[in-house]
């Protein structure tokens, strides 16, 4: 048989690797900064572009899409070419993908600090960038499927299946969750409202973790772990089961992010059941990874590559056991909205993704530069500083999370909350925040050591931009021993892709279709009315400043929550209250109190003073000061477009209300400024703070309209 000489493209892998290291350092440095801001608010720098609310999404987007994303592409481009015995389908597409992705990251790095955000977690980027992401993702997909089609290998190894499922699922998730109506170039409103928006967002959020942070890295594990250990995967049979059951079950579990919320109970239960079932495939995969090292454990002691990979796979096992446990309603009642969740995601992010990436890079660089690792000792130091970093990160966060949650729920024998002031529960966990920052710092130091080590390694070798290999051309008759139907499937990548698509779409559809049917059936609360123009502008400022990063708007039906947030009426949050919320703003973490019933709780002047210097009103507050809100003016000219967009989305503003909207806005602003003037605070009606106060004073008022009328408010 005549062999064919082909070249694997290493240059594109190198480019993605460099981007990974650079954005890893950037993303983690921002992470360290926001960790410090939580105990030293001084580090918000009194500067609007560096406040916690704006740069927290910068951190999450940078580490997920820039650090982990670029590493994923590096791993996929390297392993795919070799597993399929083919150069990538098109160099032009590879480089379009690379530069397109970096431009998207650049756009995110500029827009997020500017407050240009949709506020939906891990999907914050505004609509023009969403379109760019879709296009670049399609380029990646064409390049991948093209490579699969022109392969010289009959059988698709399981890693390729994971890559295919990643491509199609992320495409579906991104498109469905990004349905939004543009109001201007940098502003859009989510197509969905309230409960539906929450369901779609967490279907996305959960599965982004599954199909962006997990499946591609399982593919990478199934390729690089056997390579590094120099032995085949423990059980290929198990890996196939791992694949199909994981992609089939994962997609159903999204609603576990919304337990005890206003989401219908049946959807919550569905999320719990499927989350528990997920333990089986996840642990099957973890064991498969660890058992691959059977007989090679002596090498784990010496080889940093294997060390990183073993901890990565173990962290995968821990996070995928913890996830289902967190999805049990009784555990979730304690853990949700607390730092426990932050610990959980960082065991996954730092342990599973980070360590697998480091292991892969320590293996790849010597390989691609044809040399040996510059310093094994330095890599070991990196390993220990990273491991210690993860421990010092996660443990204090577990303690802080449980502690704070129990404080939120603690009652005196007389039936009063022990910690009536939310702030008391925050100040008590500050020491743990400090240790967490130290853990993050150690982890980051390790990344710097790796960068140095890899650069020195590269300089000691010679980069092979195009790696030449001799491969046999694809023989249609080439048959493997034995036979069964699944193999036929692997011969047909397009059919395979369609089946994988069906597997993921079934879960999504069954979960979401009923909730879309609910649209006209959400129990409407007659007194819930659309926001006034000024409140709408205020809500957009709330979104811009990222208030949702620290404040929830979802009072769960617990005695401790209704007593804390609505002591007078004891009203928890109802689905019908959110029908005009495009997007929903339930939040996922309470670094500050819930705000869903904040309206009317304090005077306008309280908010006015509080935003200017939170520490003066609440001693020890960690909230940044928002002084620019007093100087910047509301862009009133956008009001008609916003009203019109909301009407298109189904908010019942009367026809032609646009023309009256600005006048109404000014009237309401006038009332607030008069109120403030009576208490001695002079402010222009155009100032942004006025709109924000109007919005906050509206929150939770609709369900109390009767009472307001009775008291003459």
């Amino acid at each position, binding site marked *: 048989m005549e062999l064919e000489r082909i070249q694997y493209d290493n240059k594109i892998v190198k480019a993605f690797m460099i981007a990974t290291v650079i954005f890893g350092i950037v993303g983690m440095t921002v992470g360290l900064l926001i960790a410090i801001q939580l105990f030293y608010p001084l580090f918000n720098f009194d500067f609007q572009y560096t406040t916690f609310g704006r740069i927290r999404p910068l951190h999450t987007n940078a580490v997920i899409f820039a650090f982990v994303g670029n590493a994923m592409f590096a791993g996929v481009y390297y*392993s795919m070419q*070799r*597993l399929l*015995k083919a150069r990538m389908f098109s160099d032009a597409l590879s480089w379009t993908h690379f530069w397109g992705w970096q431009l998207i990251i650049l756009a995110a790095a500029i827009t997020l600090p500017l407050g240009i955000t949709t506020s939906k977690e891990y999907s914050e980027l505004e609509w023009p960038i969403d379109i760019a992401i879709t296009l670049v993702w399609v380029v990646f997909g064409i390049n991948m499927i093209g490579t699969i089609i022109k392969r010289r290998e009959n*059988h698709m*190894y399981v*890693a390729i299946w994971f890559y295919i499922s990643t491509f199609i699922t992320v495409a579906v998730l991104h498109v469905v969750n990004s349905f939004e109506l543009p109001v201007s170039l940098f502003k859009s409103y989510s197509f969905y409202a309230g409960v539906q928006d929450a369901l779609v967002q967490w279907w996305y959020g959960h599965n982004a973790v599954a199909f962006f942070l997990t499946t591609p890295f399982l593919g990478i594990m*199934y*390729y*690089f772990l*056997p*390579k590094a250990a*120099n032995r*085949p*995967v423990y*059980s*290929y*049979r198990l890996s*196939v*089961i791992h694949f*199909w*059951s994981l992609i*089939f079950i994962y997609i159903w579990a999204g609603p576990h992010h919304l337990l005890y919320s206003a989401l*219908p*109970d*049946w959807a919550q239960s569905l999320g719990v059941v499927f989350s528990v079932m997920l333990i089986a495939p996840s642990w099957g995969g973890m064991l498969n990874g660890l058992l691959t090292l059977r007989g090679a454990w002596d*090498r784990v002691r*010496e*080889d940093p*590559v294997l060390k990183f990979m073993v901890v990565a796979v173990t962290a995968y096992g821990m996070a995928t056991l913890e996830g289902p446990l967190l999805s049990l309603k009784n555990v979730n009642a304690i853990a949700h909205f607390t730092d426990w969740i932050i610990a959980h995601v960082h065991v996954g992010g730092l342990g599973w993704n980070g360590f697998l990436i480091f292991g892969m890079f320590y*293996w790849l660089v*010597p*390989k691609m530069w*044809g*040399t*040996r*690792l510059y310093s*094994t000792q330095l890599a070991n130091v990196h390993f220990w500083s990273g491991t210690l970093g993860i421990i010092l990160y996660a443990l204090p966060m577990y303690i802080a999370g449980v502690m704070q949650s129990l404080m939120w729920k603690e009652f005196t024998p007389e039936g009063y909350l022990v910690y009536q002031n939310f702030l008391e529960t925050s100040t008590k966990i500050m020491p743990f925040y400090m240790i967490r920052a130290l853990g993050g710092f150690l982890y980051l130091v390790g990344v710097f050591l790796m960068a140095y080590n890899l650069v020195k390694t590269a300089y000691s070798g010679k980069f092979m931009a195009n*790696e*030449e*290999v*001799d491969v046999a051309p694809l023989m249609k008759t080439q048959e*493997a*021993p*034995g*036979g*069964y*139907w*699944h*193999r036929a499937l692997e011969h047909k990548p397009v059919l395979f892709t369609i089946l994988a698509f069906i*597997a993921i779409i*079934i879960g999504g559809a*069954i979960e979401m*279709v*009923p909730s879309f*049917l*609910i649209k006209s*059936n*959400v*129990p409407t609360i007659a007194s819930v009315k659309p926001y006034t123009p000024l409140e709408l502008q205020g809500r957009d400022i709330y979104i811009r400043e990222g208030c949702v990063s620290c404040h929830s708007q979802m009072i769960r039906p617990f005695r401790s929550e209704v007593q804390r947030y609505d002591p007078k009426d004891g009203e928890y949050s109802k689905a019908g209250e959110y029908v005009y919320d495009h997007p929903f703003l339930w939040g996922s973490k309470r670094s500050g109190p819930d705000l869903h019933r904040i309206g009317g709780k304090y005077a306008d002047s309280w908010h006015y003073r509080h935003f200017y210097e939170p520490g003066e009103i609440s001693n020890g507050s960690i909230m940044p000061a928002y002084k620019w809100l007093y100087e910047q003016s509301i862009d009133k000219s956008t009001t008609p477009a916003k009203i019109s967009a909301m009407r298109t989305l189904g908010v019942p503003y009367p026809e032609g209300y646009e023309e009256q909207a600005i006048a109404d806005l000014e009237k309401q602003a006038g009332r607030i400024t008069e109120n403030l003037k009576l208490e001695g605070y002079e402010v222009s009606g155009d100032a942004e703070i006025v709109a924000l106060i109007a919005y906050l004073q509206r929150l939770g008022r609709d369900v109390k309209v009767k009472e307001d009328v009775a008291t003459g408010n």
Partner: protein
Amino acid sequence: MYKNILQSIDNVAIWPVISFVIFFLFFLLMLWWFFTIDKPYTDMMGRKPLEDSNLDSIDQTSNL
């Protein structure tokens, strides 16, 4: 309250049935596959990552 929402959806009872049927079929298929798969094939597939490069003979950890 949620009960009312569900009741007002046409044929809501079909959803759990569909879910169950799909699930059951899926796991039957999985079981069937599991018991029919042959070992030579899985052995061959398991070795795929180890046979894909000319450079595998270089042991980059040999400087330990």
